[in-house]
């Protein structure tokens, strides 16, 4: 019951985003030069930005891009963490030590600085799509160590479980043991890791984008849209400037409620 309301709100937002993109006659990059920094009108329901781009379309696109990017990145991170964690748990001790040392090395680097560094060494000619893919891929590549540690600890406990020993004694191969017994038992651990990563990645992208280091223009993202808050003329003309941040907070709150629920059950 606790999960249904946030799920319904998120679903409604996503559907709203898809409908807004389908119904609008504007592209997210289209610049209506006759209506720059326009307030709410019939043509542009939530006004336009300083280049005359429709805010409704850009917010809808940002919602879908960020949610998709963060979800894919979270899935990749969880998969990487599961691979590392399981490999470490079922390998000889020295292999596990090396793998965990590697995860410690990643953990010792502050996320944002590493993200900024990777983002800054992209070629200047990188396209907006490339920057978007790189941003989320880098997030995925940096998010796995903490998850891998949790999965490693969980897998270590399961490795010495009675039913695992029974499985070994019955002649099950390691691959069969992992597929048939271990993964189903670890699923309650994978899900919270996956759910925790989604809001964390959206937040990281928003912070990076607000600094001009996230997804490149003209592709919309929450981070890039937060930059509008620096424009005092725009703020004075329309309150719709606050729409992206309001939506972002709602989405993050909904995702946070999933995370809390998943953490409680883990």
């Amino acid at each position, binding site marked *: 019951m606790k999960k249904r309301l946030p799920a319904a709100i998120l679903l409604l937002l996503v559907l709203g985003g898809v409908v807004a993109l389908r119904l609008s006659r504007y592209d997210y990059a289209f610049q209506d030069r006759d209506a720059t920094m326009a307030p709410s009108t019939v043509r542009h329901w939530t006004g336009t930005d300083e280049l005359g781009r429709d805010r409704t379309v850009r917010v809808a696109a940002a919602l879908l891009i960020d949610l998709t990017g963060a979800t894919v990145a979270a899935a990749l991170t969880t998969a990487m963490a599961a691979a590392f964690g399981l490999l470490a748990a079922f390998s000889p001790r020295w292999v596990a030590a090396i793998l965990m040392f590697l995860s410690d*090395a990643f953990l010792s680097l*502050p996320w944002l*600085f590493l993200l*900024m560094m990777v983002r800054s060494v992209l070629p*200047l000619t990188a396209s907006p799509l490339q920057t978007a893919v790189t941003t989320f891929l880098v997030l995925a590549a940096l998010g796995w160590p903490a998850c891998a540690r949790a999965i490693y600890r969980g897998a270590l406990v399961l490795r010495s479980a009675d039913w695992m020993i029974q499985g070994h004694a019955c002649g099950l191969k390691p691959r069969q043991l992992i597929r048939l017994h271990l993964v189903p038992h670890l699923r309650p651990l994978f899900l919270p890791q996956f759910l925790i990563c989604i809001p964390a990645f959206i937040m990281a992208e*928003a*912070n990076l984008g*607000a*600094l001009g280091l996230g997804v490149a223009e003209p592709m919309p993202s929450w981070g890039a849209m937060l930059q509008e808050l620096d424009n005092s003329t725009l703020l004075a003309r329309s309150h719709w400037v606050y729409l992206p941040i309001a939506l972002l*907070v709602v989405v993050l709150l909904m995702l946070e409620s999933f995370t809390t629920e998943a953490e409680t059950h883990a």
Partner: protein
Amino acid sequence: MTIVTRAGRTLLLMLFAGAGTILLVRFAPGFFSDSREMDAKYAAAARAEMQAQNNQQPAAPLIVIHEVKSWLHGDLGQSRQYNVPVVQLLGARARVSAVLLARGISLGWLLAACTALPISRLPQGGLLWGAPFTLLLSIPTAAMATACILSNAGGPVLVLSLLIAARDFKFLRSILHGAWRSPHLLQGRAQGLPAWALLRMHILPNVTPQLCALTTLSIVTALGAVVPIEVIFTVPGLGQLAWSAVMNRDLPVLVAVSLLMACVVGFAGMLSTRTVTLEAA
């Protein structure tokens, strides 16, 4: 594991992280990129020059050894953007960031502790009292800083402390909630010991390892938040320097700042593991 082993492991980690950072930057596709790339007139020639520079690079291990040797001699390279030694740039700015971090973390802890302590004793309703912190966790740091500027209220310390308080409150409440309900505490309460005495004599000594781990987490969180905060409030600290280095592709500065941050995180991590080890002993 002894403290010496822990310190050795931390140093090895930092060396590994340093080597990884250098290689990541030096072999990134945009390391030799500059604005000439954007000019159609010069693009072909500029790209050829960059390719030639790229080809002249020594082997990866040699690059790492050379860079680490330079660092050990106190030479962090030359800033491409300001054309001054990186050490000079870091010195003055590190102090500004350290003061901001110290104030922000202290105030954040105070706020989180003052709220979590009474709430952790409540039998229920903690979720409602914790709602403002949950809301704060859902606001990006950059947006929080911009909101402070727009409303002309608060500054970098407030934003940092709110972020730290929001992050720590959840953990503090959980730690204290468990501590208040432990059997020996119930016994103490039944005997009529005052709350402050229970806190000082029973709770604090028992939760010290967790609090140290939480301090490490606070430092890591604050380091991540310092960039948007310093940029938005134009505080001349390391975060702003790192951002300016990214915008101007000043990679020697960026590598130095990142490594400095990795060192801080490494030593902060030692703080928590050391305390846990002592407790276990």
